[in-house]
């Protein structure tokens, strides 16, 4: 190494850094709006809740409703389906979750109908566990909409929802 020299910072060095910093902030503040405009807009964020009348859904039936542009499955589960979901040991699950944690009321399973693999809509009452089967890449979900086979990494997501009465639920 050559001799180490300590050069006193000059006024010009300060101006360089100050100009560079101001330039970086200016560029960032211009670029951010250009990027953020692609995020969901106010009208999308304000999408209203979806209310579902449960009285019309027979036992064993799955009804698909639209919430925030996505399908939501409302499944009126039979006792057999509930028992099947509860009998599964956690060790068999890829994304372990108890059936109790998946449904506020055991007979009503409410999940977002989007396969967690690549976003297709799974088909109800199909697949080995009689839950859902995704036709795109073969993911299989059980009667608690938990992933059991195929490429999807997670269980079907749960939307926020609350029961307004015994026969009415509000999703969102």
């Amino acid at each position, binding site marked *: 190494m050559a001799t180490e020299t300590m050069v006193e910072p000059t006024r010009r060095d300060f101006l360089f850094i100050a100009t560079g910093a101001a330039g970086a902030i200016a560029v960032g503040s211009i670029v951010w709006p250009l990027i953020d405009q692609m*995020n969901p807009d106010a009208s999308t964020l304000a999408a209203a809740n979806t209310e579902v009348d449960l009285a019309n859904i027979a036992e064993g039936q799955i009804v698909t409703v639209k919430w925030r*542009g996505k399908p939501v499955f409302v499944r009126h589960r039979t006792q057999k389906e509930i028992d099947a979901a509860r009998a599964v040991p956690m060790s068999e699950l890829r994304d372990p979750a108890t059936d109790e944690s998946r449904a506020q009321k055991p007979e009503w399973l409410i999940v977002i109908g989007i396969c967690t*693999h*690549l*976003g297709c*809509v799974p088909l109800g009452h199909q697949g080995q566990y009689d839950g859902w089967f995704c036709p*795109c890449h073969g993911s299989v979900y059980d009667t608690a909409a938990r992933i059991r086979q195929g*490429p999807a990494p997670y269980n079907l997501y749960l939307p926020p929802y609350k029961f307004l009465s015994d026969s009415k639920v509000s999703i969102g």
Partner: protein
Amino acid sequence: MSGHSTYIPKSDLARWFESRLPIIGLIHSSFIVFPNPRNLNYWWTFGGILAFMLMSQIVTGVVLVMHYTPETTLAFDSVEHIMRDVNYGWLLRYAHANGASMFFIAVYIHMFRGFYYGSYKAPREVLWLLGVVIYLLMMATGFMGYVLPWGQMSFWGATVITSLFSAIPVVGNSITTWLWGGYSVDNATLNRFFSLHYLLPFMILGVVILHIWALHVAGPGNPVGVEKKSPKDTLAFHPYFTVKDGFALVCFLIFYAWFVFYIPNFLGDADNYIEANPLQTPVHIVPEWYYLPFYAILRSIPSKLGGVIAMFGAIVLFAFLPWLDRSPVRSGNYRPVFKIFFWIFVAVTLALGYIGSQPPEGNMVLYGQLLTAYYFIFFLVILPLIGLFETPLPLPASIAESVLSPVKPPAAPAAATSSAEH
């Protein structure tokens, strides 16, 4: 771009103009007197065909936009309106949709030609990399264009491909939401795809200009892979190669016209004549044919993130070719071992394309996994090893010798020598 121009302006006006903007001289030296290797075969005509296809797509595309409406409730109907009501709308749309397929057929032939003849080797690495960039831009453009008619395959193809980004750990879902502009593929998505589908072809055009610039720095490769050394090795671009390229283009256009006029929907999917329905996925989703090999690789890996990495990796590997293939010999004609594995690779890629078009059931998954394994092993293991261990055939001294004195290198002694060495 090969040294200074030999263009001599003939009129006072031309002289006046040339001294202010020497663009005619640039065109003259690049496309009139440019010394091309005299032995270029018809595989070298696809560059010109691709330039034509890019211009054809831009022209038909600009015209289609005059009649198309990028809004989810109107897009599908506006495409049908183009097909039924607009004067020659059916011709323009079929020419544009099939033109995309022709563009990809030509680019795949162009890429495999470069692969076989070692066109990516020094001093043409940057030329090759620019080609990979063009290919990536083409894939993005083709994908977004397919979304615009807003049919079932448009919608679900867009959903599946954009969801690939949700495999990224931590930020994946935020990125997907950002790409969509909402919580699903919807109007915001359609509008931005339309905007980008219009923009990207002009970016492709810009990179194509760089690609041709880089091509004219080193000059094109050629089938024997020996660099041009003397004027005897070359012929002027015009008329020799303008005529050859022109003839190949006419043949290609006949093929293209056959699709447009006789089987315009052969490469499409019937499901795309059903309007997009966000609540119902078609039973069997397939992308356009030109993505099928990569789609098969995606489905072969039984993990979401792993599949996405493998799929993008399969494309990105092309960018590393100049450094994976260490053989000093360019042309596959003189590489007996490379040639075998190269043609296996071509067959594997085509087979992956077939598997990508089939439902992921039964043995298809297993075959897909085996072929995916070969795809990666070829790039990462076989290709570097061949470069080390292969004994190439003797190269001709010059391009002129290979063409003018077809003295077959005594095949038997040459083979005997190379086998004696081992």
